[in-house]
């Protein structure tokens, strides 16, 4: 199952509460700030085993977020990669 998350606060926390093995999370829009772990850890500091987390690179660039300041386990996609994630996973849940 793919979760598309667009906010980093409660919305992302609620999502993290429900994911389980083999799920995929895609951070978009302002949720990409949750990828940052320096100097402060974010809500993503406890990695959930078996859950892949992606961030939408164009939203990172738009916000000037340097990948070097982010959790190493996060993977990055552009919009084409976003489409691939949608193709590879079902169902898709948008968390707004």
């Amino acid at each position, binding site marked *: 199952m793919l979760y598309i998350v667009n906010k980093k606060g409660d919305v992302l926390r609620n999502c993290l509460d429900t994911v389980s093995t083999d799920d995929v999370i895609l951070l978009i829009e302002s949720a990409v700030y949750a990828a940052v772990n320096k100097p402060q850890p974010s809500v993503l500091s406890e990695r959930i085993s078996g859950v892949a987390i992606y961030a939408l690179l164009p939203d990172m660039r738009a916000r000037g977020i340097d990948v070097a300041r982010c959790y190493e386990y996060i993977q990055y996609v552009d919009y084409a990669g976003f489409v691939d994630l*949608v193709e590879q996973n079902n169902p898709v849940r948008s968390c707004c």
Partner: protein
Amino acid sequence: MKISIQINASPYQYQAADTAWHFIQAAIAKGHKVYRIFFYHDGVYNAYRDSRPPGDERDIVKRWSGLQLEHDVDLVVCVSSAQRRGLLEQSVALKVGGYEQALSDGFRIAGLGLLMEAVIESDRHITFGA
């Protein structure tokens, strides 16, 4: 893959309409079929013909109209969401399936039935919200 899209947020105030737009472009470029975009809740504001963003900014409403023209994507505005928000003039009244004066080119007005039909038809249904 056949994809339908739902947009629940107003343009400019939120990024949802932009994210949806870039996603759709990428999906079409990969050869997927975007079957229908259903504008629901505040998403109906994406259809206002008279919206005029500053000249140096993207014109979200025109973008949607262009998508219909170039790729034959069905643009459907939810009738009850639109009525609630004053998008439909009373004098225009309701012509289901028609092109309304208040709406930009390519948009049509219809009920939730068209959302459901799209969802049933599509391999994926992706919602973009506030």
